[in-house]
């Protein structure tokens, strides 16, 4: 079993109460988790809340923290679960761009809440138009680096279903993105 060594040490130090370890975990995964949350929710305020909640719960869990698996997968799954809860609570899919808080490009300055490039904005806009199930599979596989088998387990469906959603999602996304070019 090959493990991510740095994360194993960080997990141990974090469990022992290390402030530096928590800071390192935060620095290491903050933007990755924000990207996941943004891609799933397409709402800057909601994404910020989700990631904030995940890190807060994680920080509070130190005394009882037990994690045999990968830290990266654990945090990724936490974000996905909270994003799904949020979408269910809202009884709607991801916010459309015109409904959500504006996402600022990094041209706007370093203090803005969540920064991104124009290309990221364009991609996210397109991903937001996918059905939730396809969007999740694509994001979890490509940005969460989860295997189809892991995603299948998370969703409680077969791996074939997940792979089908991935193919259909990509096809639709390609059409959306190339359609934009034609506009």
């Amino acid at each position, binding site marked *: *079993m090959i493990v991510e060594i740095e994360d194993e040490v960080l997990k*141990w130090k974090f469990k022992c109460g290390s402030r530096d370890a928590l800071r390192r975990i935060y620095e290491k995964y903050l933007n990755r988790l*924000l990207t996941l949350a943004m891609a799933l929710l397409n709402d800057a305020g909601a994404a910020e809340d989700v990631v*904030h909640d995940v890190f807060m719960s994680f920080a509070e869990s130190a005394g009882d923290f037990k994690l045999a698996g990968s830290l990266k997968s654990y945090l990724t799954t936490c974000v996905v679960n909270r994003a799904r809860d949020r979408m269910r609570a809202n009884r709607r899919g991801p916010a459309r761009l015109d409904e959500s808080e504006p996402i600022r490009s*990094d041209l706007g300055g370093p203090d803005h809440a969540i920064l991104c490039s124009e290309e990221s904005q364009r991609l996210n806009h397109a991903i937001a138009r996918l059905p939730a199930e396809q969007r999740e599979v694509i994001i979890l596989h490509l940005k969460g680096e989860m295997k189809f088998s892991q995603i299948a387990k998370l969703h409680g469906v077969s791996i074939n279903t997940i792979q089908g959603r991935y193919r259909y999602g990509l096809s639709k996304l390609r059409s959306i993105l190339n359609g934009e070019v034609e506009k």
Partner: protein
Amino acid sequence: MKPTDNVEEAIKKDLNFAAGAELHDRMLDDVLNAQEKSKKAHSAVTRPNLIRRQIMKSPITKLAAVASVIVACVIGLSLWRGTQSGIALADVLAQIEKVESVRYQWSYKVAGGDPNTYKPYNETRVTWLTSQEYGSKSNWENVDPNGEWSQYVERYFLPQKKNWIFIYPTEKIYICQELEDAEVEEMQDNINVGNYLKDILQNKYESLGNSTMDGVEVAGFQITDPNWFYNLGKNQQVEHKIWVDVKTLLPVRYDILASAEVDKIVDRLTHHIVMHDFQWDVPVDAAEFEPPISDGYTVKVIKLPPGNEETAIQGLKLWVELLDKYPEKISDVDLRLVEKSGTPTALRFKEEIKGLTEGETIIKHADFVMPIRGLARFANVLQRDKKDPAYYGKTVTPKDADKVLMRWKLSDNEYRVIYGDLHAETVSPEKLAELEAALPK
């Protein structure tokens, strides 16, 4: 806007969001505060995590032992593979940190290799007792030529007194080495049982699954990376195994085996370490950490020289007298290096220690080898203080007046350099880069 031909690549590479500075700092503050509050709440119901268990971490003691099925059978263990453990070593480390004292056995065997090479002992066993409150105590025994075990030294590491004490009962010798604060801290870290686990965690390891050992269900882990230990020779092989009680999450046994081809037609040099019979959280009596000293003992108090440039140069000079060259690595006095040397100083040194016991040797040459120990201390200080030190004794000779032998950082704009002929000067980073580019490959 360009068309997106490869959507997957675009999402992987181009879809990225980042926290702005304000969000980053605000959220980090919240998260760290949450951790602090959680710690305070948790400390009310759990024991404070103060202690560090202590064992040796020197290259020799780190060297490893075998165990595997054959050894396990010989010592009467029942051991077989089972299912995957599901235990995280990080959890085991955390569990060790909660322990306040531990007593355990440690055995060390050396076999094979060049029979003419200096080997202090072929077989050693040690009983360790460590306590967060009092320090560590170890009783060392080795096998005499008749195969009988006999005690040869008792060691006490007493962090409160900043002392490291060696007592040789047979020779009636009592040696007390005074330690600096940083050395106390380093020793506390070095003798931490958990360090073995940290070493494993910092490398690629594999699960050996669950087994039963003396009626206890254990989970096994293993490292086989030959580079894990310092180099013994060619074609090195390493097996480092640890078994953890799946209920207590505390180690039950460490088995470490390292072997390599060392020279010509001799058996592979093999080092075998086993740590076993762990008794976690044993009651500790303060009296056990009071080193006994009786009448008639020769007492030697050793205070190492300060770790500075002057001491370092004196140490390097002594190495040249002993070896007629610089050692490849900076280390404490290594008799294996001196053993092979034929310089007048080395020959005199060997003649003088001939027939002496370990304790007598330390007493006799405590002052003589002090510059070398000062050099080793200086190297440790540079490493500890992250002064970007480097040492090129492998390629630079005492005749190389223009080649960098050792260097360390003074500031962002300055490095201090000791050259092969042992003169020193301060240079810019650019100049240092030129000097290092000119070093022999």
